[in-house]
């Protein structure tokens, strides 16, 4: 029996893990130090970090669910925008925030189905499919948006009883509006589903090696459809977050490129939910930090340079520590059965 030549260990990630650990410890020390010296500001910045990261995490989750099953989704921006619009309309006309959230989710899901139709059934190039959604959403929402529609306001934070009173952690994690909670749960849920359930195993198999999945009787098309639709729903949630939770109103083009940043966050996070969350938090933190630096007002640096911070930081971290990301092998390729 020849089992020789089996490599001894899988060591590729070790180096990165150590650096990640050091980085994490440094961040933790920084947070604790900040909390000791200036608890109010630290809490405010970290809470802002979480808020800024929420639409990005949701967008990234949308992207990664799709890509894990082999479908590129660069239409996240459009899905978010359209869902934000429909959620807003639902809020205006029903006055029921829950219905509005559902409307947002459904809108995202419908666009997800459209993307799946283009990339799975029509076998169109997936980047074109996403671009169609982006332009279409921008055009339709701007075209049909009317002024004078007002809502009953937005979702308010729900403190989670005594948890919200824990210093530092309480105000940041346990005093949030519903979609933010949902996002935190979704990060864990998607992680769980992707890596610990039958559905996740099949999804990853379809994204890596669709014919292997096909040969054991898994319906590749169905898996891709459902994943892209659910992903669209999650992007729709991000849109609903914008209109129902963050702002309370809709404005044209209000996504402002967040869908694209979410894409970056997804790749940055190496196609894992927690990775994406971490990347989004980093991004949110840099955004909150640049606001805080302007608040402080002591720096003699033009605010544009402070404004570059999130983007520069992302590039530095990406180039310095993360490096190459392993993309699901079958991503972007339509599956041809015969």
């Amino acid at each position, binding site marked *: 029996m020849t089992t020789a030549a089996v490599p001894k260990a899988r060591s590729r990630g070790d180096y990165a893990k150590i650096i990640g650990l050091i980085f994490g410890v440094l961040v933790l020390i920084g947070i604790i130090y900040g909390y000791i010296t200036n608890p109010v500001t630290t809490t405010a910045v970290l809470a802002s970090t979480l808020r800024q990261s929420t639409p990005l995490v949701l967008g990234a989750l949308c992207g990664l669910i799709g890509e894990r099953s082999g479908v590129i989704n660069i239409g996240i921006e459009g899905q978010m925008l359209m869902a934000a619009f429909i959620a807003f309309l639902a809020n205006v006309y029903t006055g029921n925030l829950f219905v509005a959230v559902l409307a947002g989710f459904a809108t995202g899901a419908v666009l997800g189905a459209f993307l799946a139709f283009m990339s799975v059934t029509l076998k169109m190039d997936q980047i074109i499919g996403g671009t169609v959604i982006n332009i279409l959403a921008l055009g339709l929402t701007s075209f049909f948006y009317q002024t004078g529609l007002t809502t009953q306001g937005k979702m308010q934070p729900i403190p989670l009883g005594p948890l919200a009173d824990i210093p530092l952690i309480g105000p940041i994690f346990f005093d949030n509006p519903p979609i933010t909670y949902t996002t935190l749960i979704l990060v864990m849920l998607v992680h769980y589903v992707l890596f610990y359930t039958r559905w996740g195993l099949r999804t990853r198999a379809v994204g890596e090696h669709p014919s292997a999945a096909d040969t054991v009787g898994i319906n590749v098309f169905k898996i891709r459809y459902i994943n892209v639709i659910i992903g669209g729903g999650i992007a729709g949630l991000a849109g609903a977050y914008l209109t129902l939770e963050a702002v309370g109103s809709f404005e044209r083009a209000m996504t402002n490129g967040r869908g694209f940043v979410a894409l970056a966050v997804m790749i940055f996070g190496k196609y894992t939910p927690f990775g994406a969350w971490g990347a989004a938090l980093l991004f949110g933190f840099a955004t909150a930090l640049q606001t805080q630096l302007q608040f402080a007002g002591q720096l003699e640096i033009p605010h544009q340079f402070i404004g570059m911070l999130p983007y520069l930081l992302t*590039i530095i971290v*990406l*180039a310095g520590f993360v490096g190459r990301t392993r993309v699901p092998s079958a991503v972007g390729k339509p599956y041809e059965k015969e």
Partner: protein
Amino acid sequence: MTTQTDSKANISQWLMVFWRSAAVPLVAVILALLVGAIILLISGANPLAAYSALAKGAFGTPIAFGRTLEKATPLILGGLAVAFAFKGGLFNIGGQGQLLVGAIVAAAVGFGIDGLPFIIHMPLALLVGSLAGAVYGAIPGALKAYTGAHEVITTIMLNFIAINLTDFMANGPWKDEGIVARTPAIAEAAAIPTWGNIPIGFFFAVVAALATWYLLYRTTIGYEIRTVGFNSNAAKYAGIGVSYTIILTMAISGFLAGMGGAIETLGVVGRYQPGFNAGLGFDGITIALLARTNPIGVIPAALLVGAMQAGSSQMQFDANVPFQIIDVIQALILFFVSADMIVRWIIRVKPEEGEQVTLSTSWG
């Protein structure tokens, strides 16, 4: 396409040939316009009035036609930038940033130097602006080649950085007198003139498209870039420096985008002013996809979109239809052209050989 149409060939035969290649785009555009018309009807507008106003605004007068060409110019270059990167297996979402950098640097050369003759000043400003775009484009290329950082992320990030950078320059060191954040106007000698109503910049863009095509398909550089784009393993095997080629591809892509910005500055705006170049880089993605990444195809794709943009004001004025409908129609055309399966199913025309385009390989 069959070009040797025998003079004796009967017309019906010729029509068949024409139909076979024209059918899909024809039907795609008609479908897009039809769906657009339905949307217009829903919103209570008159589609015919809207479309006729659009046509008038794009072609109705020589001035209108000039504006169509003017609009198409940065679209051609932005589209070329994206298409060129696709050929090298890279997805350059950073056209916007490269364009902004090109625009502001061209402006700096335009207003910063005095007394040069036109024949030197204008080309110099154009070249330096384009080169600035090239340098800015080479950054994500180098990051990709040496650290593996994905160009989709880095180009998106660099877009934001470019906005901040140009805003800072236009409101800081290079700010014009007065309270408005913008650079001084460029010198007369740096301006790209118009020829009657025809902007000369358009011809630069067309030349750039032809040159890009030539570079890609007739030179060893293009061969290397395409080889890396299609199969970087084979490129390595063939002794092509893959890292170098990636950087070069991004630099040329950035050069094209930067040139788009420079022409806007030198030929249209006359200075750099924040907000005057918004969205052009992103339109480049659409153009490249419409053209199926073919450098020559970029020209008509840009003309199509440019015409719609140029006509949109007239459409507002004559038919009171908001300009955003243009985006909708654009998306629909892109959809129907790409989803030729649908169109073929409707009109039953078989696909031509080798028509498949895959861009998504540039993802991984």
